[in-house]
């Protein structure tokens, strides 16, 4: 049977980096935003509007889910909502990463990339 994740091949950069950010554990909105900035050397800066627009669509697609546990009020604001990857989200980010890695490998073979 064809993997359902095939249909998620063309992820937008924002969605891809949010999935990547959540791959090492659940995070709240601001933490995701900062992590994406770090991942991309500040080349992808999302505002709250773009971030929560993506989160809404990713929740609807079943790529991520809201974590039920809230942070300890002594450590962080308990009103913060944390998100984590679903099983589908993990498959999708894996497939997309592999696809990009394959594309990078081809680019290296063709000497498009300066460093190989």
């Amino acid at each position, binding site marked *: 049977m064809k993997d359902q994740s095939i249909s998620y091949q063309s992820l937008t950069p924002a969605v891809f980096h949010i999935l990547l950010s959540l791959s090492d554990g659940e995070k709240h909105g601001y933490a995701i935003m900062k992590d994406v900035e770090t991942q991309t050397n500040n080349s992808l800066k999302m505002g709250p509007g*773009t971030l929560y627009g993506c989160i*809404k669509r990713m929740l609807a697609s079943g790529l991520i889910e809201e974590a039920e546990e809230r942070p300890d009020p002594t450590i962080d604001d308990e009103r913060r909502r944390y998100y984590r990857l679903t099983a589908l989200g993990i498959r999708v980010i894996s497939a997309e990463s592999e696809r990009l890695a394959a594309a990078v490998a081809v680019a290296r073979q063709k000497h498009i990339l300066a460093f190989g």
Partner: protein
Amino acid sequence: MAFKHKFDRSRRVYTRLLYLYPLEHREEYGASMLQVFTDQLHAASREEGGSGFFILWVRTLWDLGISAIKEQFSTPHLTDGLLEAIPNQPLPWKGVALVLVPGLAFFIAQLAQLSGQDWFYWMIYRAGYILILPVLITWALKRKFPLWGLIPMGLFFRTLWDLGYRIYNGGLLLTHPKLFSWLKWVTPSADIFRGAVIVMVTAVIIALLILFAHRQKLPQKTWYWLGAYIVLCAAYVGGAFFDAGLFGWQPLFTIAPSFLYENIGFLMLILLGNFFDRRHGRLAVLLLIGYLLPTVIYGRFNAPWNSPPNDLVNIYLVLITIIVLVYRFIIALAAPVWVVRSATPGAQRKASLITLLICVVIQVVMHIYVRIFMALNIQYADFTWISWFVTFAEELVMVSGIGLATVLYDNPPPITQSESVSVDTLVQQ
């Protein structure tokens, strides 16, 4: 202290800006978005100082503008009630706003006309062509005729029908020496040909209506209203002929169609409404509101209206202007809102009937005032009782047309054989 003030003000402004997002999105994510923005404010002041706020705001406004538009267009509820009303629910206000566009355009144009600007007349003759464009584009893209397109469609129909009259009355096409020289072989005069065309069109419309009423097994009152329409049309033409001293067969074929032209158009529009009531039910009556929109266009008068002979006539003119404004308000703004905000079928029917009849009454009053004005001028002194009869008969034709339309639109097409079988199957399962 200054920092805290800037910080709090930024939060307040951002909270207000969140209203640009759809309600559902705001309720679900508004608090989280504000929290992220607050975190960004803290970081900006910590890392970049005073200029950090400015840079953050530039980035935030760009993000907010783009994402708010995206959310507005991707929210499923946005289109609810825009293309068609949900049964037993009033049309949402965003749909109402679209329904009111033609009325607003005409109402503003009317006010402009009172201030002496002549673009009102430009508006009358060209609004139909412009307002129908978004309707046709939406129809083509969505494959559904939008509810808010009914008024522009009625307006467009009237504009085309009026254009037809100008061509018909001018005889430009029918008397063109080269293109239509063949007419000589068909009929002895272009007048008779034109009359014959109108009579044939009338016959076809009535035949189509009878065929439709017969196939849909419409109630008896449909026939009464249609009969009343035909009889009143005949009475109107008869009265007009008597008033003008026209007798014999020749004017019956040459001039009668001119008198009937508008009533034939109205009847054709009522028939056209049957194609729209399958989707929009009783709200198809909005077509008639669109048709009535350009009528009663007085307000500022050309000579001799601009130089009233005495104070009495001047008062009449002021009253006419007030009546026109009231008419415009009802037909362009109040009636559509009342009709589309009525939830139940009964309330929609009541709203349609009452508003349309109010408009007819206003038109009658308007005509009476104009007739009185004419009677007060020497050149129109030969105003007789038969002139009054003709005035009222013309309005009664419209009333019977509205009655016919409401009966027709009250009876949507019955369930077909295949549909009823599938419903039975579902019930059995």
